[in-house]
């Protein structure tokens, strides 16, 4: 019941609706890509190379005659999966470090946070770029790069929240009753910082989509012929003078995804964290 009420409040504002529509659009595209894509994204129709959008190819074809609609759909799918996986790894690692540092405190806190602060001196794009490229690029290395770049961001955010929760009466009460540290961390601290994790997770997903697009664009991410949105923009550059559809649609899909996630993340933050309302 409470969840339903929250959801209603979430959808009631016009921006909330726009965000939700964009997210649903993006998720449907990604999840149903194998079903709704008219062609195989790798299939080359040589006689229709660089064909402008028409009935047969709704978004046109690229320099190899591959159907852009199918490629964009599969690209959306790839970016969704990739951002979810890498953000999840980053969130789990970061939460682990953040809760341990925040709750156990003392030397452990000092050591972990010092290290986190230092990792934060590398901007995420630089960390992800270096790790992904030096490990030789490709799907799994992009995921590792983004996950490592996100870990300190999560750790810092969650440690801050844990420090506040730790002082609450119910945690002190649990301690007085003799609950173990592990139990308190899992049953009392973690559920109470969940809202921070959720908000951060949603925002980080949008960064991950942008990071993957940038890395693939620069040539250090997913390798061709895999349909990656960033890679498509990069490849489309050569022929954009007379085939602008090659760069417009992949970018538009990234924008739909990121815009939807950002709007929803904002609304989520408003609902889950009343203190931050209006910030």
């Amino acid at each position: 019941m409470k969840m339903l009420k929250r959801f209603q409040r979430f959808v009631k504002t016009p921006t909330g609706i726009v965000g939700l529509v964009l997210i649903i659009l993006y998720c449907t595209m990604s999840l149903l890509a194998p079903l709704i894509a008219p062609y195989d994204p790798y299939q080359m129709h040589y006689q229709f190379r660089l064909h402008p959008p028409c009935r047969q190819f709704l978004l046109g074809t690229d320099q190899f005659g591959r159907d852009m609609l199918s490629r964009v759909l599969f690209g959306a799918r790839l970016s969704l999966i990739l951002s979810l996986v890498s953000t999840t790894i980053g969130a789990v690692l970061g939460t682990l470090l953040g809760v341990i540092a925040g709750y156990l405190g003392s030397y452990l806190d000092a050591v972990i946070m010092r290290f986190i602060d230092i990792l934060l001196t590398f901007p995420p794009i630089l960390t992800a770029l270096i790790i992904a490229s030096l490990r030789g690029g490709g799907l799994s290395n992009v995921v590792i790069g983004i996950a490592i770049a996100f870990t300190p961001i999560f750790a810092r955010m969650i440690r801050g929240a844990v420090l506040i929760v730790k002082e609450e009466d119910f945690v002190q009460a649990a301690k007085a009753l003799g609950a173990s540290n592990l139990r308190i961390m899992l049953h009392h601290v973690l559920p109470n910082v969940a809202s921070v994790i959720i908000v951060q997770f949603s925002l980080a997903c949008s960064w991950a989509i942008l990071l993957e697009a940038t890395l693939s664009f620069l040539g250090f991410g997913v390798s061709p012929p895999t349909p990656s949105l960033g890679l498509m923009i990069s490849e489309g550059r050569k022929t954009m003078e007379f085939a602008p559809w090659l760069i417009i649609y992949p970018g538009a899909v990234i924008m739909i995804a990121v815009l939807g996630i950002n709007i929803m993340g904002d609304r989520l933050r408003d609902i889950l964290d009343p203190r931050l309302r209006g910030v």
Partner: protein
Amino acid sequence: MYRYLLRRLIQAIPTLIIVSILVFLVTRLIPGTIIDIIAGLDSKILTEEQIKALSKLYGLDQPLVKQYFVWLAAIIHGNMGYSFRTGQAVVQEIAARLPCTLELTLLATLISIVLGIPLGLFAAVKHNSLIDLICTFFAICGISIPKVWLGVLIIFILSRFFGWLPPLGTFIPFHINPVGSLEQLVFPALVLAFDVAATIARLTRSSTLEILHQNYIITAFSKGLPASSIYFRHCLKNALIPIITALGIQVGYMLAGAIAVEQIFTLPGIGTLLLSAIARRDYPVIQGTILFIAFAFILVNLFVDVLYGIINPKIRLEV
């Protein structure tokens, strides 16, 4: 103030040391040694003796810890090694590329301030008006638009509809040809500044809104002070504190964001230097540029902290 400054400087030292260790290790964790990379496929035909000689030349026969200290000592003396590809000193390569990145970042910072702060301020003053809606829309779109897409779109629009492209390739310094330099950098800077301007506009709006409800603003209005003086002197000055913090972080990120922007507009900056070095596995250049970007990032943060102490006396006293 000096004590505050000194303390911040001392705090930055351990960070710098650990950053240098990480950067040093980055290239040692790669499979194979420097010799394999330099010699390429020829490394198999090298004799035992030749490998030994090369190891000695590059100091690879020493223990890792010693290698690190030798490397660090050289860097402190301003020697970051030599590029595998061009044979030039890494310091020189960076110095040659620095003006471009520096001018790009400065221009982008300027654009984001000039665009972001007034927009946020107007939006807050005319709360719930059309301009407020535009500001909110811009703020959310600005952080959602992929930089690489925006850059490519701008190039496409300029060339297709205006038949013009910003001068690509060689960098035109501002002090030699101001007009040409701006022509070259204004669009890349706009791309780089877009999300920062959006963030700044959003922050200005929210912190101004908060301050407009404070008692001293109401007092100022009831005293009959002119509105412009209230908005700029009472309001903006107090709203600036969170804005400057955010701007500091964002300017630091711009140095890294410039990597993609320089690549799109083919500008010879630090970013394109790093990218070409990665593509060619030119490790001394990779190490040098990463170290340089991290160093610049720490420096910007230090500068922001100092600025913060000047603006907000409360922080100075706490230390």
